[in-house]
């Protein structure tokens, strides 16, 4: 009798301790396919939020000496739709609209007339490789000043000649190393690298640096977040 009482007393205590672990079973929700998009989506959103929180406009990406830059032929193309959407470079204009004082079509000469920044920075691909390249162009902040953009707006939305599209938070757009890039290796952009104008964003993951830019919209509302972002990749993805 006594031994049975003893065992049940021990059993009661251990059962109670086991039940205390029940909250961990909530992780089982991740195994339910119907719940995965919402759960993993909020995990990704939290990660984006954290990266945006510790982004500082004063934190500069490392820059490198010319000797550390990879040779031009070893700077990868990673375009998803071939390498050349067939832009007529002579007729090319950047169409600017949205929350700007001077909307319209801007020529490459107008952008080239802005102070030129040349920097050797690291391009980090989401796949896991990284490469140090030489980039040159105008600061996006100078382009925004040129077009009279309302820099209290939240986003810059870009479309590209190859159906790619991208969007950028204003804080990153105003970062001093964020470029409207028209040259690599001190020569005009090659078609494979997004001629005539692309983004070069040393504080962002590679796919944010859209190529073959055709339109820029300054806005508070995004139609789409980006070609890859709308398929499940992170939006902010600051480095």
């Amino acid at each position, binding site marked *: 009798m006594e031994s049975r009482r*003893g065992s049940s007393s021990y059993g009661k205590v*251990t059962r109670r301790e086991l039940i205390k672990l029940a909250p961990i079973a909530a992780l089982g929700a991740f195994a339910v396919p119907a719940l995965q998009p919402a759960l993993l989506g909020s995990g990704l959103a939290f990660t984006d939020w954290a990266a945006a929180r510790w982004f500082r406009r004063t934190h500069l990406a*490392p820059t490198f000496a010319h000797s550390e830059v990879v040779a031009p032929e*070893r700077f990868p193309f990673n375009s998803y739709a071939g390498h050349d959407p067939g832009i007529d470079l002579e007729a090319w204009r950047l169409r600017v609209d949205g929350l700007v004082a001077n909307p319209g079509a801007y020529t490459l000469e107008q952008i080239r007339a802005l102070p030129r920044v040349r920097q050797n920075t690291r391009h980090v691909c*989401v796949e896991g490789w990284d490469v140090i390249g030489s980039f040159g162009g105008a600061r996006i902040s100078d382009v925004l000043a040129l077009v009279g953009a309302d820099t209290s707006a939240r986003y810059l939305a870009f479309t590209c000649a190859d159906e790619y599209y991208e969007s950028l938070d204003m804080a990153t757009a105003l970062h001093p190393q964020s470029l409207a890039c028209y040259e690599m290796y001190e020569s005009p952009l090659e078609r494979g690298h997004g001629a005539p104008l692309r983004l070069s964003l040393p504080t962002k993951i590679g796919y944010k640096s859209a190529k073959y830019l055709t339109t820029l919209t300054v806005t508070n509302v995004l139609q789409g977040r980006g070609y890859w972002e709308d398929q499940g*990749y992170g939006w902010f993805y600051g480095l």
Partner: protein
Amino acid sequence: MAGSTASDRPAPTERGSWRAPEVVRFPASTSDVRAAYEHPWIVRATHWVTAVALVVLVGSGLQIFTAFPSFGPKIPQEDLFVVPEALRLGGWLAGALMWHFTFMWIFIAAGVAYVGYQLGSGRYRMVLFTPRDVAGVWPMVRHYALRRAKPPVTGPYNALQKLAYTSTILFGVVSVLSGLVLFNPVQFSWLAWLMGGYTRARIWHFIAMCGFLAFIPGHLLMVALHGWKNFVSMLVGWKRDPEYRPE
């Protein structure tokens, strides 16, 4: 120092060293069940959460690695090996990143809770591998690998266990720090420098995973061999008839 009780009792408490959990009886009035409360709730909870998180992080990490299975340049790319699809989680790179970016927070939270509790409660002294434990490692290895006699039990964990458990904390720290560099190399540029650069951080991240992958089979083998009571104890906190204090 006579050592007459050294074989069946933990070393006497000195300079705050860990005292083995007290053995109590159920019910208190009789001498029916002897048991010791080994693992507080927070330790058990973080153990199992970490176990789940590690499975997810390794699986999604291998899927992420598959996007560029190399530690060399992109051009020319030399793939190291192909990870079997059955070991990968997430289906494609974006899916794997979602899993990784979700469970990294769960892993960090569990790690911080565990280490914080161990430090705050002083229980870390029970498992932390210190220079004093170095001498005890080889006799334990000899016991397991060469089937020699088991060294006398002097505490809840032997030197080899302390080495293994302390190593996992190290792997966790390295994986989180190198992961921070991979995730935000610009904002944590000093950490990137400490890791030897972005590509090296990727290698450190991989090494930390290999550390966990080396630990887990041994850990599971020990549980399978003679750890049933330990397994139950990690679930309910209590161990029946603990061997380190026969009383």
